[in-house]
């Protein structure tokens, strides 16, 4: 049951991430907006991250049959997802998140190389949680300012993903409990909520009488 839900979650994450990523990319090519460019990176990263984990489960299911995903692969997928969450948070001008000193930044990253894949996974999950909470709060604030229903749905989606991440971490304290299942269900609900407002917009690309490249050059910088 847990494995099935995990597969569904990762497949849904992969599909939704790629659809929103493609939509953002089309928007970027049509308008040259840097915000759409950041959202393109964010959602492609989220989609690819989920896709890697889904692929890992499929490889195990079809070939290895060990009943668990390779820890390194899981950490890689979660890491790429976190990059996506970072770009969503970064779009809300999260500029003071990292220390400015280049030396300090390199030292901060060092401990990651001395930890096992399991520990790295937990660190990545905690980063994801912080970024998702930040993104959710900023989106809720925008909703309060603009009263746009779409912002409420996206904010709720990010909040559910964050809560799911938190519950997943908490399930480590109580393994074999229902907490992990709840976390997967929360994340699936979060992804669907994230997709709802975007699903109302038509997915297509327009042609500007051979002017697209010129517009990109002019406005995309």
């Amino acid at each position, binding site marked *: 049951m847990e494995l099935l839900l995990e597969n569904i979650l990762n497949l849904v994450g992969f599909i939704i991430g790629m659809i929103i990523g493609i*939509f*953002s990319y089309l*928007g970027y090519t*049509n*308008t*040259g*907006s*840097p*915000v*759409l460019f950041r*959202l393109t990176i964010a959602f492609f990263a989220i989609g690819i991250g989920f896709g890697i984990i889904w692929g890992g489960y499929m490889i195990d299911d079809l070939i290895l049959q060990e009943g668990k995903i390779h820890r390194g692969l899981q950490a890689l997928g979660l890491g790429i997802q976190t990059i996506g969450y970072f770009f*969503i948070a970064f*779009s*809300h001008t999260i500029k003071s998140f990292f220390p400015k000193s280049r030396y300090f930044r390199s030292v901060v990253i060092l401990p990651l190389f001395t930890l096992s894949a399991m520990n790295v996974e937990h660190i990545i999950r905690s980063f994801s949680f912080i970024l998702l909470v930040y993104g959710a709060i*900023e*989106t*809720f*604030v*925008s*909703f309060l300012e*603009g009263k*746009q229903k*779409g*912002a409420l*749905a*996206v*904010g709720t989606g990010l909040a559910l993903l964050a809560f799911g991440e938190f519950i997943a971490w908490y399930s480590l304290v109580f393994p074999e409990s229902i907490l992990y299942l709840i976390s997967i269900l929360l994340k699936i609900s979060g992804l669907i909520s994230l997709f709802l*407002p*975007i699903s109302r*917009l*038509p997915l297509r690309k*327009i*042609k*500007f*009488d051979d*002017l697209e490249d*010129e*517009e990109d050059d*002019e*406005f995309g910088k």
Partner: protein
Amino acid sequence: MGPYRNQIQIVGDILVAAEELTIDQDGAPITKLIQKANISHSRISKILTNLVSQGLLEQVDSKQARRYKISMSGKDFLREFKRYSEFTDNFGLSI
């Protein structure tokens, strides 16, 4: 005071103004565009030159003053601009 607009938002505002002011074939005078898009003369001149060179606006020759009207490509761009503005609004972001 409202938030600062980026380049794309300014272009969007100019195109919206041009579309609303283009009632007939004469196009809109630059002073009306300045008022409607809320932008300085020095800044709008450069942007208008760019938009005309890219075919999003058309410059109409007139005896009185330079006039601009939105082109078909400009309307297409504006439609996309509005659609993706709604998309980024959903994330609480400005395009």
